């Protein structure tokens, strides 16, 4: 048992133990016990930092299903370390926070169980080298987040949000799985590292682009990229610690992780570049633009998260250019986008985590998150206000907070890219910085909204009545730790760069010779350049827009309500349900005749279709046995009787005619030299007829068929086709004489089985097994008839009985 697997497994083990603890411990203790796990894991992981910084990687393989190359291969490198530190670090803070946030009346054991499951799953995602195992953990994050979102499942909105997130993320996961399978088909391995090593072999494969798109689909759904972001705002129904953990720091970053992880594989493709950059930028814009119109603090943060994820995503897209270009001194500068992405990823986790916790406090203490009902909280929630203002300014990209640094780097990256002359960037390249900038303006606006609408202005009277207090220390501590990081990182960014980001850069660009070159020196202050001017512009325009929000916010009404993405999603779901229902109801009518029609039509279409398409028909009556006159009469008798059944008006007539047919069949058995058959047929036919008569006591007389002429004609046509199919194939079969029958063997029955009646020796010896089972069939039928008659439903018996 090595450490890496222990890291992944510990949360699961703990999750499994929770029900035990839950019974033994006081309810408020459970959180503290759980807290041990992330904290110790975090500490453990920090010990990896110096070693990984030196360029070491750790990998171990544990066999799971080696037969199909599904092995549990852990892989710790710079990239996975960043994420794992976030997962355990933010995880610790969130659990600490939740101890105070959640009442002991809540089913805490469920909560912590889900949370630990989730944590383990996330660790699994980032530590797995095997695609299938990665996928397994990936889906587990969806599942555990589903449970967390639905934690308050008695609320309708919680359930709806959970369902939406699960549906969308699992769909993405399934697509990603297909992408992984395609990768496997191309490379023959599930190991990401091996695929990276074989990149030359697979990059020309036809499946390469589809695989790329499918993997991206997975990443985009998970990371809430446009247009799949719609699940994230709804997921805010989860308890706030969950939002803060899943929807800011961890789960949504899984998509980012995936994109970063796959950049070495797909990074050289134009499709990759444009898709990620484009989708990222659209998301960035759309998220920030929509955040402004929200009135729920959590919703603002949700859209803000969407937007920030878009930002990080677009940076990864921009950074992928470097993979395409390959290593050279000029191209290294493009890797900085990726550096910025990773940097912003950490920054975002810090300030967004803090902000969510801040909202949680507001919600917890005031009882609402609606900014229309909030205001003036600065006075009563001073610490919370501090968190809010630092978090928001960092998010808005203002100094002296870490967000400023990464935002500047983002601007650098979007500006740099316009100078490239590949992938047709020159055509619309200028749009990239423009969109980035516009989005940043909106970001600034909603940051102002959060701070001012909540904390500034005057308090609403109903809030005053409640006489709210500042949150307890335990709830303030985690956000303050995060805020502390926000500031610390601003002042010591290069420590982060050196120890944490640098090794990760090597993971993204394994072909680049040195990480040193890809690790820029981050400085808070540099000379006045375009980036700084852009930031200034953001601030100025942002303030103006905030001032005049009332006037221009009307543009949101331009978007018709029924055409929002959410509405479309709902419409697609409901209409697909409704259409499915109407189609299904239409053909699954419950009417047996319809089912028979389907069956017969399929029979004719498929069998006769094949028969005709393959041109299999042959007819050669020369080998036929001669037809005697009396046989001809018998044939006519049968046809006459058969057709007469169709027109018979009384059930007795039909049964008698059937008996005539049966007897005629028996006579054919006589003519065709089958004495045993003739005997059996005679008796069975008689007994069957008797059975009909006996049962008629309980049945009604025939009524004329009340079908329309059309139905009758179509049934008639079907019948003729079915009959013709049998006849035509039969005619061909009769002529088929490529093989001699095995039955000549049975003609030696006397010597082999001691019987002179060949048919009987077949039944009693050669194929006695059939006979044995046929007897069983008969027995079942007899017993069944008995049971069916004796076991009648009791009067008034509703089908409750199981």
């Amino acid at each position: 048992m090595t450490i890496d697997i222990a890291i992944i497994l510990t949360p699961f083990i703990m999750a499994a133990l929770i029900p035990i603890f839950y019974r033994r411990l006081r309810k408020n203790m459970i959180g503290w016990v759980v807290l041990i796990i992330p904290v110790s894991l975090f500490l453990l992981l920090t010990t990896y930092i110096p070693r990984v910084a030196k360029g070491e990687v750790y990998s171990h393989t544990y066999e799971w299903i080696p037969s199909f190359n599904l092995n549990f291969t852990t892989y710790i490198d710079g990239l996975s370390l960043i994420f794992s530190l976030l997962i355990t670090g933010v995880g610790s803070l969130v659990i600490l926070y939740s101890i105070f946030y959640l009442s002991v009346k809540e089913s805490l054991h469920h909560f912590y169980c889900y949370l630990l499951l989730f944590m383990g799953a996330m660790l699994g995602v980032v530590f797995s080298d095997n695609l299938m195992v990665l996928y397994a953990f990936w889906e587990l994050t969806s599942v555990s987040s589903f449970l967390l979102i639905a934690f308050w499942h008695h609320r309708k909105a919680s359930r709806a949000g959970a369902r939406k997130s699960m549906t969308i993320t699992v769909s993405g996961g399934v697509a990603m799985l297909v992408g992984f399978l395609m990768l496997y088909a191309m490379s023959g391995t599930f190991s990401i590292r091996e695929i990276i090593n074989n990149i030359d072999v697979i990059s020309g494969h036809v499946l390469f682009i589809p695989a790329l798109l499918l993997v991206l689909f997975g990443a985009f759904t998970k990371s809430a990229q446009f247009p799949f972001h719609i699940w994230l705002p709804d997921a805010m129904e989860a308890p706030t610690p969950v939002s803060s953990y899943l929807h800011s720091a961890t789960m949504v970053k899984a998509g980012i992780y995936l994109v970063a992880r796959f950049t070495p594989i797909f990074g050289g493709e134009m499709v990759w570049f444009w898709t990620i950059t484009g989708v990222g930028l659209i998301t960035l814009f759309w998220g920030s633009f929509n955040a402004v119109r929200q009135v729920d603090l959590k919703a603002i943060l949700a859209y803000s998260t969407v937007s920030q994820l878009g930002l990080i995503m677009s940076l990864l897209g921009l950074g992928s250019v470097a993979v395409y270009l390959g290593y050279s001194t000029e191209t290294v500068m493009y890797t900085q986008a990726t550096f910025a992405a990773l940097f912003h990823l950490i920054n975002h986790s810090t300030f967004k985590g803090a902000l969510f916790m801040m909202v949680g406090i507001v919600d917890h203490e005031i009882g609402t998150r609606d900014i229309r009902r909030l205001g003036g909280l600065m006075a009563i929630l001073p610490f919370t206000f501090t968190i809010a203002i630092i978090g928001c300014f960092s998010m808005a990209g203002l100094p002296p907070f870490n967000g400023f640094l990464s935002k500047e780097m983002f601007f650098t990256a979007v500006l740099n890219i316009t100078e490239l002359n590949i992938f047709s960037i020159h055509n619309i390249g200028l749009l990239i910085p423009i969109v980035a900038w516009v989005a940043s303006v909106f970001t600034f606006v909603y940051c102002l909204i959060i701070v001012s609408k909540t904390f500034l202005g005057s308090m609403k009277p109903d809030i005053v009545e409640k006489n709210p207090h500042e949150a307890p220390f335990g709830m303030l501590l985690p956000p303050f730790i995060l805020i502390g990081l926000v500031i610390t990182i601003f002042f010591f960014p290069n420590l982060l760069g050196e120890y944490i980001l640098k090794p990760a850069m090597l993971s993204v660009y394994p072909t680049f010779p040195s990480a040193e070159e890809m690790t820029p020196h981050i400085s808070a202050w540099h000379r006045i350049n375009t980036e700084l001017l852009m930031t200034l512009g953001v601030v100025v325009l942002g303030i103006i827009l905030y001032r005049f929000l009332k006037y221009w916010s009307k543009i949101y009404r331009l978007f018709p309500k029924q055409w929002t993405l959410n509405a479309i999603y709902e419409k697609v779901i409901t209409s697909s349900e409704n259409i499915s229902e109407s189609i299904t109801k239409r053909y699954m009518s419950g009417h047996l005749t319809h089912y028979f029609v389907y069956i017969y039509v399929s029979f004719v279409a498929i069998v006769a279709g094949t028969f005709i398409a393959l041109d299999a028909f042959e007819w050669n009556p020369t080998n036929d046995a001669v037809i005697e006159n009396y046989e001809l009469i018998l044939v006519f008798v049968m046809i006459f009787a058969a057709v007469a059944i169709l027109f018979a008006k009384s059930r007795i007539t039909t049964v008698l005619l059937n008996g005539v047919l049966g007897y005629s069949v028996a006579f054919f058995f006589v003519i065709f030299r089958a004495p045993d058959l003739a005997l059996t047929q005679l008796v069975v036919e008689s007994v069957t007829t008797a059975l009909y008569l006996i049962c008629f006591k309980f049945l009604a007389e025939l009524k004329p068929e009340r079908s329309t002429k059309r139905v009758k004609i179509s049934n008639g046509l079907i019948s003729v086709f079915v009959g013709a199919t049998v006849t035509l194939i039969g005619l061909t079969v009769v002529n088929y004489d490529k093989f001699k029958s095995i039955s000549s063997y049975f003609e030696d029955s006397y010597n082999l089985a001691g019987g002179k009646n060949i048919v009987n020796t077949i039944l009693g010896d050669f194929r006695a097994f059939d006979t044995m089972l046929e007897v069983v069939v008969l027995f079942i039928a007899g017993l069944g008839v008995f049971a069916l008659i004796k076991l009648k439903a009791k009067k008034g018996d509703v089908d409750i009985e199981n």
Partner: protein
Amino acid sequence: MSVKEILEWVAVLLILFGSIVSVISALGLIKLPDVYTRSHAASKSSTFAVLACLLGAFIYFWVVDGYVSIRLILGIIFVFITSPVAGHLICRAAYRANVPLAEGSGEDELKPVLFGGEGVVGSSVDLEEGTEK
């Protein structure tokens, strides 16, 4: 012509005779006016036909193959005994199920006993299709 051959011919002719009788009785089944009269055709002519035929077959097998078929004899006996019973039962059933006698029938001494009415021919129940109550 040996005895054997004569017997063979006897057999064959018996069979042919039977077949002719059978066709006649079939015609009777079509032609006769009501179920009772038809039952006469069935329980007599048809039975006679089959007995002739079976007897012919019996003789044929005996003469040609030297094969004395007990089964044929049993068959003859069986048909012989059972066919009048069948005729009796069907007529009874028909009568009890109100199947009318043919038009132009004479006296009916059973009707008053069974249905308590006058001994007049032809109850008016329509028996076109089935006789279930």
